[in-house]
């Protein structure tokens, strides 16, 4: 009986966690779509001064996918740092070479 209650509790907890994660995924997805559309709108102004904004939006998109969809947020610190360093090298490279 106790085992059954524990199992039910564990299943309920797992269900709540899953729904919470899918809810956060959905919010992240909406944010990503908004950022993609914002990048397009900014690019359509043909103002080359705004390239930095487009790149910064890409950085936010990259980190959202990595931390939420790939679940780096739950990984060891070194993998979070690796993701941040990768995207930092992208920004630095673009800023120097653009």
């Amino acid at each position, binding site marked *: 009986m106790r085992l059954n209650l524990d199992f039910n509790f564990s299943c309920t907890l797992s269900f709540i966690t899953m729904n919470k994660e899918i809810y956060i995924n959905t919010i992240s997805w909406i944010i990503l779509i908004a950022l993609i559309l914002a990048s397009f709108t900014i690019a359509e102004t043909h103002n080359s001064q705004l390239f930095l904004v487009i790149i910064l939006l890409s950085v936010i998109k990259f980190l959202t996918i990595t931390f939420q969809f790939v679940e780096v947020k739950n990984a060891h610190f070194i993998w979070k740092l690796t993701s941040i360093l990768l995207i930092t090298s992208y920004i630095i490279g*673009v800023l120097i070479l653009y």
Partner: protein
Amino acid sequence: MNQNSKSIYYPPGGILIWFLILLEIFTFLGAIFVFLYKRSAELEEFKQAQAFLNPLVGTINTIVLITSGYFMANSLHQLKNNDNKKSARSVKIAIFFGIVFLIIKSTEFYGKINHGIGFTENTFFTFYWLMTGFHYIHVLFGVGLLAYVQYAISKNKYKSTNTFDVESSATYWHLCDLIWILIFPVLYLL
């Protein structure tokens, strides 16, 4: 996320897929940096060539790929909750959007070829074909991988206690998103 996820040796999807991610992103970063270096040297030529690309199509394709990644991320949570039916359905939707991406990209490639814009047209298009073509192959492989994962989930080969392969495949699929997020603004928007 498996129980050892906080360990340095067990990043999401396993350490090997992360070596692949690092290798792939470094490769694409190298290509992006050389592209930008060449762009600064041949700015007018690059701007003229870029005018042949349609940023709206690129934007739609980005939304399609991100949506696919969203469904793949959800499928993993559904599998971990023992809901194989919903998980398999989510992977199926992810595959659908992956195929839509490939169709849109193929149409774009076909249009370029029809206009006689090939690999050796100019420096811009050499990089365009290299980067988007290489990414296309990744997505093509990913669709095949997800098709297998979908089949295996629907046949209950994977369960909440055995999600490692699905997690690795999902991580690979997100790699395709990440690469596209990096190359899309550089090729289409800047």
